[in-house]
């Protein structure tokens, strides 16, 4: 596809269940970001992948959150034992990885934990 694709677009899960969110970045983009936006809040950084470098995981809010990026392309964000405070829109973005370029965002996955 031409842009960043995220799936599912909406996810409702019960508290305590695990969820996986998927991001397909733009082909050839070496950098990939995950952010989340809770209701009424700004963009909260979660994790950043850049090429073969070790990911910057400094934004992950707890050890229930993890992410991987296979083959330098598709990324999966996993939230274990979901809590109600995990409810948010999870946004993925990718960029060519060359400096001075912007990141392109997907439409996001709206996660609701009930």
């Amino acid at each position, binding site marked *: 596809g031409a842009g*960043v694709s995220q799936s599912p677009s909406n996810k409702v899960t019960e508290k305590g269940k695990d969820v996986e969110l998927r991001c397909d970045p733009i082909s050839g983009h070496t950098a990939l*970001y995950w*952010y989340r936006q809770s209701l009424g*809040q*700004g*963009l909260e*950084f979660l994790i*950043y992948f*850049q090429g073969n*470098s070790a990911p*910057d995981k400094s934004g992950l809010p707890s050890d229930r959150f993890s992410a991987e990026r296979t083959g330098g392309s598709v990324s999966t964000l996993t939230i274990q034992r979901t809590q109600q405070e995990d409810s948010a829109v999870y*946004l993925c*973005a990718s960029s060519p*990885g060359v*400096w*001075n370029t*912007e*990141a*392109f*965002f*997907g*439409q*996001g996955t709206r996660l609701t934990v009930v």
Partner: protein
Amino acid sequence: DQQVKQNSPSLSVQEGRISILNCDYTNSMFDYFLWYKKYPAEGPTFLISISSIKDKNEDGRFTVFLNKSAKHLSLHIVPSQPGDSAVYFCAARNTGANSKLTFGKGITLSVRP
């Protein structure tokens, strides 16, 4: 520690007037700055950027000004249009360190017809 700050949560302007959205940063290593626009239920879209070697960048109705000594940048929209009503995020990065994009909390702009 909020390294990119957008201290005003909202701004309302009349159609045709100028909108000025402000952003402050604390990390002196930031050398590339971007503005994004976000409509409800959509992902943020890139609007305009500026490198730290410049103090102004203009693209149509949008101009970004950078004051490095004050660690301050601003986005000017003139003339403002009702379709500009959205949340605007300021972002910054340290390109030398190949660092992540750090975003502010956003400003909600409302342009009144």
